[in-house]
């Protein structure tokens, strides 16, 4: 990530948490603050919220100051061998975003199909995203991985694994 985007994200994350704190102030208004010697449910969140506002604001100011004073040094990435297929080009370019999306899909599939099927599908997909695509090793890793986890958790230790609506 280049320095410009990094600084933007640094400011963004501070603004994000400042917004959360402001929402929290509104939501917590229905709880008691300090009542005599009773520390109300609102007290601690408000103290923490004020501190986040303070540190978040300082962070934003420091970051803006840094942006003004630093000369961007662009590091050139080494050219990679481009995949021939346009789909694979897209997968390589957005692999982080795709992997986050796959995690969300994994959660939905776990709720629907249960651990074994969802995990097998997730493993194949995430390995594809990471360009580990030889059919035989992928099949072996998937079967052995899912099997080992299932046997060690569910069978040997009796620890429940996520179950879906269908299985």
């Amino acid at each position: 990530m280049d320095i410009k985007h990094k600084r933007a994200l640094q400011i963004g994350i501070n603004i994000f948490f400042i917004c959360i704190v402001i929402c929290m102030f509104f939501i917590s208004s229905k709880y008691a603050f300090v009542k005599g010697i009773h520390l109300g449910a609102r007290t601690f969140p408000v103290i923490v919220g004020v501190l986040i506002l303070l540190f978040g604001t300082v962070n934003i100011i420091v970051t803006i100051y840094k942006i003004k004073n630093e000369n961007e040094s662009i590091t050139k990435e080494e050219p990679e061998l481009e995949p021939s297929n346009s789909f694979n080009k897209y997968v390589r370019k957005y692999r982080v975003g795709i992997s986050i999306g796959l995690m969300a899909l994994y959660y939905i599939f776990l709720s629907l199909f249960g651990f074994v099927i969802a995990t097998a599908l997730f493993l194949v997909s995430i390995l594809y995203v990471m360009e580990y695509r030889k059919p035989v090793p992928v099949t072996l890793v998937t079967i052995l991985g899912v099997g080992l986890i299932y046997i060690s958790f569910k069978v040997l230790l009796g620890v429940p694994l996520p179950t879906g609506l269908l299985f």
Partner: protein
Amino acid sequence: MLGYLGNGFIHLFTTMAAPALLGGVILGIIIGVLPGLTATMGIALLIPLTYYVSPSIGLSMLVGIFTGGIYGGSVSAILLKTPGTPAAGATILDGNPLAQKGQAGKAIAIATIASAIGGLIGALILSLLAPQIAKIAVRFGPPEYVLLGIYGLTMISYVSGTSLIRGLFAGCIGLLISTFGVDPISSVPRFTFGTLNLLTGFELLPILIGIFAMSQAIEGVKNSREVMPPQAKLTKVGISLQEFFRILPHIVKSAFIGTFVGAVPGTGTDIAAFLSYGEAKRSSKYPEEFGKGSIEGVAAPESGNNACVNGAMIPMFTLGIPGEAATAVILGGLMVLGLQPGPLLFVDKPEIIYTVFASTITSNLFMIIVGILGARVFAKVLSLPKSIIVSFIFIFSVVGSYSMRNSMFDIIVMMCSGLLGYVFTIIDYPIPPVLLGVILGPLVESNLGRTLLVSGGNLTIFFKRPISIFFIIVIVGTISSNIYKHFKSKDAPQES
């Protein structure tokens, strides 16, 4: 007392208690290595087995699982950046960077040696000084807990990296996360949004797995095309004598910190590990190495958390008070076996108590053998292709967060924490302070409320109690030394 302890050893090695202890240690390590399976869960799973054996054999097995489980968490923390147990949260900070440098074998060896020595010191203190320490531990009231929590929060300055403000910001986010759930004093459901999942707040383990393991997995996808250097794959297991003597003072100091923290009910191995880490960094001759693969940074938390295991047994055996979750489960096991924990247990059943004490000492010796022999096997994980390791970190993150309380909600918590951890990683914000906030927030808040209640709102209570005054001095000393170091580093000539 030494005579009883001697008899305990004789009983341990002339019955099936020693093999049961060894089996417990091995099983505990396996459970600890698997993310999501905590020592508490392991003990709970195996309590039914103890019905069929004598109390000393059953208890020896539980002690073995507890000791092995806490140590085992460090292995996955070092190799996969996935903490097997919450106690291994602090071990990640230097254990994983050391493994990344191609010294996984050394990191595991340090964790094993430190865990064993720390545990051994803790076990000796338990065996010889349990009643005396219990007397101090019961004098801990709400003001002392508040100050203990605040002292823990001062550790943020040691784990903040280059920017203290960013560390404080991250720590406050952890504190904010800890405010979800029922208010500890008024019992008002707070920020629960009408869902039962949030009534007890966020569980620590899914957050821990998310911010360390899941974020690491996303980072792993980003760098999946990088080829792992050959030297990172498998290394020699062991440390030099020079390195051993460098980490030894930190191991010993952390063992005392861990035992004391464990002896105070309501704390735990995670707090002991972070306090030990912070203290090691504060007193190290090489503080600049922390966070980049410092051997002291691996040794201190491992010594602290394993010593805490024994410390936690002090109030359990002497007063019948479980200090934390794992000892609460063991306490249940004791009762199932027909034993009533408390001072009378030392009079009524000394042979059982001292066999257990002998087990705590011996379990650390077993652990060092199993740990060193197993290290080469554990380190082989790194010889797998990076894409396979990363994909299994994803899956273990999901399984680990689900298995804690069989909750799909915890998987969502883990994923959100993972995203937060990833974003923090790419924008150079420190992650460990978030954890400190999550761990220590409830301790500070609930006890501050109780302090106000018992003192009638008079805050001078903090200056009227000897242990409180001790903590105030330590906190002021820590903050002052940090401010001094901060200004000193600013005055020092900057490297080009």
